[in-house]
């Protein structure tokens, strides 16, 4: 009996391990859903304390179909507005910015908790990655040269990069999207601060717990979202675009039939009544 009792936990563990082995591949193969940005989606730039736009050989340009708003909350400092063009609505320490920060917090936590993840080297340059969740060996993320994100033909493919410390991209670095990858589905969750190099090209929703510094002449296809600290820009370009529709219209579709039988039946009914009345009128002939 004692032996049997000892065996029970063992058999339970074996059963659990077997179940886990069966389930894990399914979990890891499952495609990641996108990270919901909520109202933060409307902001090209969002900071906790300060947004500073410096000028150097040109002004910062903001555009995008998803939103060009600039917000600061709980702080309210925004300097250098004259050095930027294309800014949408300004939300400085107002309810809209507060809500956007709350939604940013939710999105940040969502990204931080995503599993399963793949561990990759700190240096992202020179690599091609497919959809998934990525962390690095030491926690930091660095990019020198080019990083390629391959959606393998799936326009909904989601890429999530989690940094336990910082994100630093070198000057002139580039993120290339291939096979249908879209900037709107790339997410960066940075536990400290991020620095984007001069003249670099960055892609995705950059969510930093502290601050974001963008050096001169960088192009960002996405958003710059700092939860607690500042966002600093110098002569940069930010395009905060919506995802492209994934359900294009069928080419050469057949036109729907839009006829009703109502009037046909109405005419038929009148005809039947007339015939009935006619038959009624001649029934005496059969006497």
């Amino acid at each position: 009996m004692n032996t049997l009792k000892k065996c029970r936990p063992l058999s339970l563990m074996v059963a659990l391990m077997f179940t886990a082995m069966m389930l894990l591949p399914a979990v890891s193969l499952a495609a990641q859903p996108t990270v919901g940005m909520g109202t933060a989606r409307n902001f090209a730039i969002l900071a906790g304390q300060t947004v500073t736009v410096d000028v150097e050989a040109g002004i910062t340009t903001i555009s995008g179909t998803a939103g060009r708003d600039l917000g600061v909350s709980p702080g309210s400092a925004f300097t250098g507005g004259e050095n930027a063009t294309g800014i949408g609505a300004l939300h400085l320490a107002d309810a809209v910015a507060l809500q956007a920060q709350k939604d940013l917090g939710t999105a940040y936590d969502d990204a931080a908790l995503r599993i399963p993840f793949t561990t990759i080297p700190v240096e992202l340059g020179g690599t091609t990655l497919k959809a998934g969740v990525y962390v690095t060996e030491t926690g930091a993320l660095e990019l020198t040269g080019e990083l390629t994100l391959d959606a393998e033909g799936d326009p909904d493919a989601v890429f999530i990069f989690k940094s336990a410390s910082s994100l630093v991209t070198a000057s002139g670095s580039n993120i290339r999207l291939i096979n249908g990858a879209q900037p709107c589905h790339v997410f960066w969750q940075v536990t400290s601060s991020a620095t984007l190099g001069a003249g670099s090209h960055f892609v995705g929703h950059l969510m930093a717990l502290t601050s974001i510094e963008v050096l001169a002449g960088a192009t960002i296809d996405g958003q710059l979202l700092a939860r607690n600290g500042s966002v600093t820009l110098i002569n940069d370009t930010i395009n905060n675009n919506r995802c492209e529709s994934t359900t294009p219209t069928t080419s050469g579709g057949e036109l729907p039939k839009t006829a009703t039988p109502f009037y046909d039946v109405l005419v038929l009914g009148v005809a039947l009544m007339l015939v009935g009345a006619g038959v009624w009128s001649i029934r005496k002939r059969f006497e």
Partner: protein
Amino acid sequence: MNSGKHSKGTRPLITLLSLGLVVLGIGCVSWAAFSIWSQSDEQLNKAAAASAPTVEATAAPAPVSAPATPAPEPVFYATRPKSGDKIGTLSIPALDRSLPLLEGTTNKVLDRGVGHYSGSVLPGEVDNCVVSGHRDTVFRRLNKLKIGDKVIVKTSAGTFTYAVSRKRIVHADDKTVIVPTDHAVLTLTTCYPFNYVGSAPDRYIVSADLVTGE
């Protein structure tokens, strides 16, 4: 004599037949009248206002001409609607019509309002959004629309205002209407001629370009 006996015997049958035809005729007229009444402006306006859209938007209302306003993620609609789902309402101020907009173009769906062709993008999205309606109910005065008239589509993703840019008549088999476009277009289709009894051979097409979305 034989003939007279035969006639006497058939008189009740003839009476019954005539009464049957009249009753059947009244039934057909009543059904058609009720169907036409149920598709009247007033009833459809009530239906348009009655229920909320069943299609979920991804987030806040979507911007089109003014990108500073809220936008959804990743596209305007979180899920594609199923056949029969209410997408929103389609209003044509020039015709004083407000119609329920539903997913699909089956007879069942078109009896309830304007149907969205499932093989096209949803309202507000870039590309060609095709909607169809009966020529003798919801779209019976579609030919009265003029270039520039507004068509407003209200969905869970926002309010999208289109302006009529083109009208044309094509054959029912024309394959050049439901085609992709490089900008947001709303295409309204219905059978033509409007007063045709039976299956109409042509289609009346109205194209409208997206002007604003909020």
